């Protein structure tokens, strides 16, 4: 019996909602993967019923075991609900006609070529973008197109935005990710678990730890083991330092956009100090290979009291600088009212992370489906309600404080050291989801394991889920707001272009 995760198999689709909608949500219980078999033709109906009842679309992908099937995953009332439809043909009715959240995943699925999502109008290709091939979205004499990217002005990752503009106002934006698609999901195939963990940590730099945790959680759940509390505690340390570094990166870039040079220098220093602390703890400025399935990857070179001392001095400086930043009017003027989103838009696109939390949508994998040490730690979800670039920054600053609080809890000496449940067998077989809250939102991994080797895998990146929201956030915003809005989203193309 799997003690870390209840896995529920339901016989018929109607049973799911009949039985499940009335059941109370288990907040403190074990998070559940709920599997529902459906026929391929019934997939849209089942998905529709879930969406109507408030489920959030997570992703759609192909699973190989026990039979080759299409899996549509949803986050629903503190659980992952997976609709599984055996694939007998090579086409199915697309879910993107029900929810916009499914559009990019289904366009990707179409290009991978295993199965065709059918829709009117047909889904456009997305995986191999051509920098010179774009077209106008908006009709009219006065509108013209600015292709921005894939190589852009500054030290940025490659992505292309095709902007329809009348000169100053932004009429429409087409976000074109996948310029750096590296087919890394396919690279997992045949790898050992150790090699897979190393690859997972190298998919998206700003979210290295979150990817590694999601991978490790998936392996551990497939094996039915729960590592000792110490392992989980160090994962919290690495993950929260990563979150602080990423949020400081956003603050630095925003200060740079406002030409606030001392602000850039101050937040640059704070971020560098966090990166150096991470290097002193794990030997890597990105805590790479510090998180691996079943154990501590790299033992810390710093003792907990030393880390706590470093955090105390960081906290003082951060409190000063963040207060100064949000009180600098020339800076906040550029953020307030820029790139405003609302709850309904977040729900329509299945948005995650600080972008959703800035619209008072309380999505956070650490809280929704607690994993690892977050099952026991006290956590407050940071949120704001104005939904603009300023709200996203305020949420990030609040989250830095929450992270410091979590770090102090994780580094506290433990009275009772929970010794975990079971050792990771060398030849794990099985399949499971794993997840973690990255700085930009929730990362979900799906892994199939066969005697210690990885079979099929699927990575759900928060950046891919939030890209469409970036375009949707332009409501009367002009070209000069572009970089402020982009940086306030804090997304990573490497995450989506895995």
């Amino acid at each position, binding site marked *: 019996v799997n003690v870390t995760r209840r896995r529920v198999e339901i016989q018929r689709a109607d049973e799911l909602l009949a039985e499940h909608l009335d059941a109370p949500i288990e907040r403190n219980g074990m998070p559940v993967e709920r599997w529902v078999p459906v026929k391929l033709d019934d997939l849209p109906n089942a998905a529709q019923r879930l969406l109507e009842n408030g489920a959030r679309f997570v992703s759609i992908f192909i699973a190989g075991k026990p039979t080759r099937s299409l899996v549509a995953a949803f986050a629903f009332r503190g659980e992952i609900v997976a609709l599984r439809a055996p694939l007998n043909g090579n086409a199915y009715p697309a879910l993107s006609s029900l929810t916009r959240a499914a559009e990019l995943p289904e366009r990707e699925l179409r290009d991978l070529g295993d199965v065709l999502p059918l829709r009117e109008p047909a889904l456009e290709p997305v995986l*191999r*973008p*051509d*920098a010179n091939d774009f077209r106008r979205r908006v009709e009219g004499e006065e509108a013209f197109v600015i292709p921005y990217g*894939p*190589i852009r*002005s*500054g*030290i*940025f*990752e*490659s992505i292309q935005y095709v902007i329809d503009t009348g000169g100053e106002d932004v009429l429409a934006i087409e976000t074109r990710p996948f*310029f*750096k*698609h*590296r*087919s*890394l999901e396919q*690279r997992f195939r045949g790898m050992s678990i*150790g*090699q897979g963990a*190393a*690859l997972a940590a*190298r*998919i*998206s*730099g*700003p979210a*290295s730890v979150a990817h590694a945790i999601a991978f490790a959680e998936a392996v551990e759940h497939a094996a039915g083991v729960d590592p000792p509390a110490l392992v989980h505690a160090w994962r919290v340390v690495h993950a929260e330092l990563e979150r602080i570094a990423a949020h400081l*990166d956003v603050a*630095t870039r925003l200060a740079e956009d406002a030409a*606030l040079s*001392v602000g850039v*220098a*101050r937040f*640059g*220093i704070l*971020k*560098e100090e966090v*990166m*150096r602390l991470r*290097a*002193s703890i794990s*030997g*890597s400025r*990105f805590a*790479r*290979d510090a998180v691996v399935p079943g154990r501590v990857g*790299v033992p810390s*070179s710093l003792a907990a009291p030393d880390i706590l001392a470093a955090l105390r001095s960081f906290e003082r400086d951060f409190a*000063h*600088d963040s207060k*100064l930043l949000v*009180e*600098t009017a020339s800076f906040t003027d550029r953020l307030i009212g820029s790139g405003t989103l609302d709850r309904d838009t977040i729900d329509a696109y299945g948005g995650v992370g600080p972008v959703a939390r800035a619209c008072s949508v309380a999505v956070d994998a650490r809280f929704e489906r607690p994993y690892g040490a977050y099952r026991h730690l006290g956590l407050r979800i940071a949120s704001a309600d104005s939904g603009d670039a300023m709200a996203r920054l305020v949420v990030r600053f609040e989250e830095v404080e929450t992270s410091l609080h979590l770090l102090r809890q994780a580094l506290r000496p433990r009275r009772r050291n929970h010794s975990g449940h079971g050792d990771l067998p060398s030849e794990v077989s099985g399949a499971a989801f794993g997840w973690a809250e990255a700085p930009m939102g929730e990362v979900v991994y799906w892994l199939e394991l066969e005697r210690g080797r990885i079979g099929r895998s699927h990575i759900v990146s928060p950046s891919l889920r939030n890209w469409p929201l970036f375009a949707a956030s332009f409501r009367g915003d002009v070209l000069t707001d572009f970089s402020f809005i982009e940086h306030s989203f804090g997304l*990573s*193309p*490497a*995450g989506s*272009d895995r």
Partner: protein
Amino acid sequence: MLGWVTRGLRRGIVTTRYPSSPEQAPFGFRGRVGFREGASSGGKDARAREDVCPTSAISAGNGLISLDRGRCVLCGACVDAYPELFQFEPEYETAARTRAALVVGDRHAAPEKAVQRSLAEQARGLKRSIHIRHVDAGSDGAEEWEIAALTNPYYDMQRLGLFFTLTPRHADVLLVTGAVTTSMAEPLRRAYEAMPFPKAVVAAGTDACSGGFAARMGDADHLQGVARVLPVDVYVPGSPPSPIALLHGLLLAAGIVTHEVVE
């Protein structure tokens, strides 16, 4: 505004003196993998040592084991499996002028010491400023963080006459990250062609040096590193390379474009 001024002044100077004086990596820093002193690589299970590396950085020929740092992603699989042979070295200066210089055997130490000594002199002797254009051709995003860090007060690249430019037209050095994906090959080539002569190309990160994890066996054209698309002058391995490693690589490249290489 006054608040910012006092915040800036109170902190004082944090900037490194590199390359005038060396920068020490913290204890346990995983800068690069090397051979343990006095380790001997018996040929018996050489094949097994090859297989332990997920990116084929270790190869065994004629009973000798060699390690290609241009392929190494610093995952530590070899150090875990064969601690008597491999070890992590807390080294920052990992850049090299040739691809071959990144391949080390267990019998000889890494070369290029002479070039490194001259770096400080070279940095002082820069007759003009060097402008750098960065292009991401498929990185994991970590390299961009480290490159952006070069302008923070800790590294302050500008003090050495190194500047980032927003256009290839003003660039002397092209700093490329990532394994070069299908969609990025053409934009990368065009950025290079738009640069005036003399120009140098720096491949930053293991992905840019060889493709790293993204490299696929049997695919000769894509995701095999920058050298398949452009002539590379300096290789900076690392996953990602540290800011000092990048600075090291950029100074080597600056030497090339100013024709002041001391060897």
